[in-house]
């Protein structure tokens, strides 16, 4: 029997790994992947709790909205990353220290 704890534990692992990627990786694309991992963990929790709400389907509906938000965020963030790469010739967040050249 799959209980809600199973989903929560997997979600906790995915969230922590995503957090580690955001904090430690030196590549903007992998930082973005880390953010996506954290969003996926959140969606997993939404879906797991949403199973107990068949009158409104709140969990699944907001999981869909969260997927849309993630997609929009990635599109804009990748455009920003490519522009930053064009200007600074690097995607390492530590080397990008000036707002205006």
């Amino acid at each position, binding site marked *: 029997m799959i209980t*809600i*704890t199973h*989903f*929560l*534990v*997997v*979600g*906790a*692992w*995915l*969230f*922590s*790994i*995503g*957090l*580690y*990627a955001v*904090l*430690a*990786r*030196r*590549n903007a694309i*992998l930082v973005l*992947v880390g953010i*996506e*991992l954290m969003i*996926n963990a959140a*969606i*997993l929790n939404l*879906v797991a*709790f949403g*199973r*107990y*709400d*068949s*009158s*409104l*389907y709140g969990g*699944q*509906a*907001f*999981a*869909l909205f969260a*997927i*849309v938000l*993630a*997609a*929009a*965020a*990635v*599109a*804009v963030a*990748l*455009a920003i*990353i*490519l*522009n930053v*790469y064009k200007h600074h010739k*690097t*995607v390492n967040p530590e080397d990008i220290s000036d707002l205006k050249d």
Partner: protein
Amino acid sequence: MDMQTIVFYSLAFAAVFSAILLVSLRNIARSLFLFFVVLFAVAGLYLFALADFVAITQVMVYVGGILILMLFAFMLSNREMFRQLQRGTAHFIAIPVWQALPIAILFLTVMLYTALHVGRNEPPWITASREAGTVIRAADNTVEQLGVHTMTHYLLPFEVVSVLLMMALIGAAHLARKEGDA
């Protein structure tokens, strides 16, 4: 252990191990392909929560859209990165890593504790829902219900999300245009 549990555990281990490998590999292209595995495994986990439509959306939007975008961005920006990777391993164990690892582990501990706590004493609304029989069953038609609720009860979030999508579209197009021809 029945079949369901075995499949759940294999999907969960595939997701978690691919994610750990993803953040520890130095080759970005391999990490992105491992992200593919993570997304598929998590979509499989959604199926266990009886969210079939969310799982399909995950495969379509993430694997079909986001991952391809990321691969493109990686390939358009990787020349300098390969040079950086070859230049040296001076940053292999950098300070941020051993600062980031305890933070991530602390988060993991707190969340695992909370998850086990939720498992031991079930929230009252879940118990009430189970007694009232409003738990989603495997035979329910999720897609129809989701469509009806999106167009009735969740109409405001739906509209807000559509406005946000349009903003993101305009913003991305504005950012991606060539310099000069404003």
